[in-house]
């Protein structure tokens, strides 16, 4: 349930400063909803993390996890809030990554600053979201899923085959790394391959994103999404422009993905089309939000962390564990079997089982949103306006 007793914010003319204050006060109010203490402690811990743990590879893992969380939060807007199954989410990720890689690298010898493109690529991805969404969002849910899947297959192939612009299969190498310019006596700082500054960037982006998403969820737009998800005909008759509203969900979701894409290519120094396949991104992010609980920010974050840990740590380490276990047990019949390789090869299988299992046993996910929970247990009226209108 959303909060229904917000105190009025200090009202003044909507200057930029006031807007920022507005954001801030909303964020603090979001914290205030529960007890804000655990969140602040968590945030402080996260800020202090690089000082506590000096191992750069751990920081690297943490920032990578952060990127996945960002992706999951974005898809959650589309699937969790607006109820649109987007199977081509990776396409927007790719668009974000490539827009940065093409506009800030030696590829065309254009070097637009990272900070600008971090925002701009979100807009570019959103633009593509609108271009794809505008004609397709009036389709029924399952058609939309397949159209986005098709789009998700097209985009990496276009990047792969337009070698003149994108470096083809080899991708673009030598993407500019972010740096903080010399201003006000600050000596300037190049990120290079040090994961720590990236970690802070993604942390900041995440904190801001979460605040924005909380705002969104409790706004006019958030209510409209919920309404459309529940009953599109009633929503339309109540005065919600369903197409525009769905489009906004699509575009906002895409912009998060574009965001993550730019960040990703800057961090990795290289983009290649392989990184954006259905199997590598779209499905993984979907599993994250399905597992964690569609529509619930905490759930989505937890789901993202679990799946990230599973695919980047457990499945990578498991062969080693199993092999050492195997040699320590030393059973003759096990000697010929390479358990480790089986463990590593079972990623698809595990993902499949998670998706099917969750939908059958706990469709609301591990940490569901209250609304989604009942909804998935009891079902909603699922009838698009387009159906009702025949083939209008």
């Amino acid at each position: 349930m959303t909060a229904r007793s917000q105190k009025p914010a200090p009202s003044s003319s909507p200057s930029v400063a006031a807007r920022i204050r507005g954001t801030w006060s909303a964020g603090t109010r979001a914290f205030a909803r529960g007890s804000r203490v655990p969140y602040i402690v968590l945030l402080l811990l996260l800020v202090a993390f690089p000082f506590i743990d000096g191992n750069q590879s751990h920081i690297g893992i943490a920032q990578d996890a952060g990127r996945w969380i960002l992706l999951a939060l974005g898809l959650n807007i589309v699937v969790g809030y607006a109820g649109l199954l987007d199977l081509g989410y990776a396409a927007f990720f790719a668009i974000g990554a490539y827009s940065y890689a093409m506009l800030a690298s030696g590829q065309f010898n254009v070097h637009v600053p990272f900070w600008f493109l971090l925002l701009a690529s979100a807009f570019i991805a959103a633009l593509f979201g609108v271009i794809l969404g505008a004609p397709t969002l009036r389709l029924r849910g399952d058609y939309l899923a397949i159209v986005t899947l098709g789009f998700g297959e097209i985009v990496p192939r276009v990047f792969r085959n337009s070698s003149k612009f994108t470096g083809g299969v080899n991708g673009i190498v030598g993407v500019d790394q972010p740096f903080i310019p010399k201003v006000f006596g600050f000596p300037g700082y190049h990120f290079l391959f040090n994961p720590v500054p990236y970690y802070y960037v993604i942390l900041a982006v995440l904190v801001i994103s979460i605040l924005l998403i909380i705002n969104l969820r409790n706004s006019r737009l958030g209510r409209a999404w919920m309404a459309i998800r529940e009953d599109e005909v009633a929503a339309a008759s109540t005065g919600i422009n369903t197409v525009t509203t769905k489009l906004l969900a699509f575009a906002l979701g895409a912009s998060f993905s574009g965001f993550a894409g730019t960040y990703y290519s800057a961090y990795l120094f290289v983009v290649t089309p392989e990184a954006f396949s259905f199997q590598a991104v779209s499905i993984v992010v979907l599993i994250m939000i399905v597992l964690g609980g569609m529509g619930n920010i905490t759930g989505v974050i937890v789901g993202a962390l679990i799946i990230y840990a599973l695919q980047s740590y457990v499945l990578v380490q498991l062969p080693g564990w199993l092999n050492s276990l195997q040699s320590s047990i030393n059973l003759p019949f096990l000697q010929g079997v390479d358990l480790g390789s089986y463990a590593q090869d079972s990623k698809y299988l595990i993902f499949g089982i998670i998706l099917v299992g969750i939908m059958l046993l706990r469709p609301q996910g591990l940490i569901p949103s209250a609304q989604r929970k009942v909804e998935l247990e009891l079902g909603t009226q699922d009838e698009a306006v387009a159906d009702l209108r025949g083939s209008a």
Partner: protein
Amino acid sequence: MGTVLETRGVSKRFGGLLAVNEVDLQVEEGEIFAMIGPNGAGKTTMFNMIAGLYKPTSGQILFRGKSIYPIREFWRNYTPLLAGYYAVADRVRRGLGFGPMPLALRPHAVTTLGIARTFQNIRLFSFMSVLENVMVGEHCRMHAQVYDSLLRTPRAVSEERRVQERARDLLKFVGLERYSEEYARNLPYGHQRRLEIARALASGPRLLMLDEPAAGFNPQEKVELIQLIQQIRSQGVTIFLIEHDMKVVMEISQRIVVLDYGEKIAEGPPEQVRNDPRVVEAYLGKPA
């Protein structure tokens, strides 16, 4: 007092079935106007056409003297390409004497114009709170843009507050203020009907269309409903309802139109309609 809603020769064909045939209606400002008729007479189809869920096969619908499907509105609601196509088709049709191109505004645009409706089978947002349901109703009267929502600008915050207050007022008006935090689906049936009316009122309509508001009500609830409808009307909202319960219809409506087989067979004040032999026949059948 003028005419709020007017239909001119509106027809709707589904495949081989002519569901509504050349129906002319006039709903006057401030009245309670009822549409009755046996099952399958085309009443809900009429409603759906007015509300923009169906596109009429032919005919025109006017709201406060202006066509509900003006090309200009169309531009705003459809892609320019499609609107361009319709504009040309409209010109051609008029030129050939077929009358204007029947265009449908999308439902939300109709609501924005000032026509709100309820549904025969209640269509609330079951998993949203009662208050949120009403606030969704106010959606089309709100101005917060995406960035307002994202950044929670003072403008959005104050609007949100205003909308919430109004929603609470409306809930009080229909007598549901106690349940504002409850999921809509947890309300008893009768309350759900009232909530649907409150949600429709939230869009600030000039015309409220009620599709069988008394269905499934016991006599006591019906009495309360009649009171509510009259209160709404006294606030200057015109009421257009479909109802099967003749007691209710006869009691509250100023004028009644009767549809049968998609055609208008009678129109007039309750007494006149009740004694119209065609109406009696439509309902009870010709004695064998």
